[in-house]
């Protein structure tokens, strides 16, 4: 298979890196070669953050070349222009507009809801998603995450 590229983007403190960690860990456990890149740094202070996940038989560069992302998942609409160049022609853009944000148990759960939305484009087993979410989040978040993930899938 050729390399699959999924870019996550948003503002610092909104769980961009966490979401990409979940997705990367998922495809790792499914047996793919995986690379994930992001620049940390000042992101905590509300600046733009983006994280690239690439998987396939063999992945070389950890960074998605412009125009090669099959998916761009943004957590804030104003981050679309900043990251659009990554998207492949005919690629899929997902933003909070694609889900029913008003139903979320908390604003913090948006990243998991976006993962729920993303999950509808892959035929990875749902138990696997659930398992990784439980592995990477503290127990107190598990219930809210399950709800958010479902809302994302339904949106």
């Amino acid at each position, binding site marked *: 298979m050729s390399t699959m590229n999924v870019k996550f983007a948003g*503002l*610092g403190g909104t769980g961009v890196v966490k979401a990409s960690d979940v997705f*990367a*860990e998922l495809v*790792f456990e499914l047996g793919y*070669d*995986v*690379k*994930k*890149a*992001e*620049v*940390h*740094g*000042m*992101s*905590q*202070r*509300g*600046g*733009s953050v*983006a994280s690239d996940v690439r998987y396939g038989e063999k*992945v*070389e*560069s*950890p*960074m998605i*070349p*412009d125009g090669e992302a099959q998916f761009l998942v943004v957590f804030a609409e*104003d*981050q679309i*222009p*900043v*990251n*659009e*160049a990554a998207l492949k022609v005919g690629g899929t853009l997902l933003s909070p507009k694609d889900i029913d944000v008003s139903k979320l148990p908390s604003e913090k759960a948006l990243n998991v809801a976006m993962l729920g939305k993303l999950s509808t484009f892959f035929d990875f087993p749902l138990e696997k998603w659930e398992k990784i979410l439980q592995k990477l989040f503290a127990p107190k978040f598990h219930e809210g995450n399950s709800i958010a993930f479902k809302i994302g899938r339904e949106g």
Partner: protein
Amino acid sequence: MPSFDPSAKKMLLSGNEAISLSMLHCNVQIATGYPGTPSSEILETYSEIGGYAQWAPNEKVAAEVALGAAFGHARSVVTMKHVGLNVASDVLYTATYSGVQGSMVWIVADDPGQASSQNEQDTRNHAKAAVCPMFEPSNSQEAYDMVRLAFQTSERFGIPVILRMTTRVDHSKSIVQVSDEKLEALKPHFVRDIASRVMVPGYSKPAAKRLRAKMEEMAAWNSAEGPNRMEMRSTDLGIITSGISYHHVREAAPEASVLKIGMSYPLPVNLIREFAAKVGRLVVIEENDPWLFEGISALGIKVEGKYDPIYRFGELDVNRVRRILAKDQSPEPVPVKGRPPALCQGCPHRESFAVLNELNCIVSGDIGCYTLAALPPLSAMDMMIDMGAAIGMGLGLRHVLPREEAKRVVSVIGDSTFIHSGITGLVEMGYNRPSTGHVVIILDNSITAMTGQQEHPGTGRKLDHSPAYKVNYGEIAKAAGIENVFEVNPVKEYDKMKALVKEALEKDELTLIIAKSPCILALKSILAWDKANREKAGDQK
């Protein structure tokens, strides 16, 4: 809690996590350093997975501690970001002469593209100038493996070794397979050997000669057995590369033959000659300075470098490598600017700089979260160069400016930065007093915030947040001859802070103001660490 299970055999790890795990598997006895993006997580993770790590006041002290440990036949690590090596370079340039008896690895992280650094300097220049062997991993697996190789090399040749990282390799995640090859713990002990460790000219002149001889030997070893790889495919195009650039190259030019250099100092000269003879067009692809290019050109080999100076700046990526290979001179696409970072809502630095704006100060600044105050809307800092510089630069201005202007100069420095290299500035202030006096403000938010909330000697807690002696800034100042010392909370006592600064500016005296209010983002953790420490102390009573 570590973010991975250190007992697993195969994991998705960042380069920094892979280094920490390898340090554990190499039985590193002491690991020290000073925080700096992108290197900071190495020691934190090492401590979390059970290794012994400590923060030093600055990189120089850290390097000296690690060197002393290696003189005592231990295995030691020192970590820092690229600019940290400027501070510690005085140690490195003579530690290569003395060599080590245990082993010592310097993990130095460069930041091509300046994701969070004040410059884009290239550590490879230091390695060459200090005559220090250097490894350059391309991914997390190599970072894991090269830590072990670096120790083996350090022990075999009796010399410190640099592991040169870059932001992408530190922070990208890729798969790591744990090795069965573990290094037995060394047994620290002391053997007197004055001639090899006291670097007076009589002993260091022969040491310099020994060092050059070691390098000859290492270069031959590197060509024959070093962590380099010649991958022959089409011979029309041959590419010499190292670090993360290797992966960009493989993706951009999958048909090209590649010489991947894993140990870049001393260069594997014979291997490079062999590769050059096999291919038609020969190109070097590297980030930062044209370092490999110059080294290979100096061998008399005809090689292309980054033909266009624009590629000297910023990180490389797959598309940029394609452009370099195609000699594409058209302007690069300009990326859309994202939202810049700003001081957090509720950050105590906001008030401190609001005071300085109200009083129309000339602000000699320093590095930390508070440097963000230089940007609009505050625009309240006039200069920032390197850690600790706030005090010295402020004094320089005070000495030369006309009185009216000199009276407006204030030096502003963070608490971690003050410990790092502000103390000597304070000593200078007491020693060479400007006639108009001077005012220094320590922004004491009780943490090293900028780099992700690390402890330091002024927080009263060690790297693992257990209790430690807490440095008293005011007492240091008094001992250095600073007559006025005040502490004030810039958030809760804004007016008092303003009055204090105003008064201090009017006097021709020396004043230190400690603006004390915790980092809002770290507050919850600080309270939890202190509570845990109090409870533990209670239990022991």
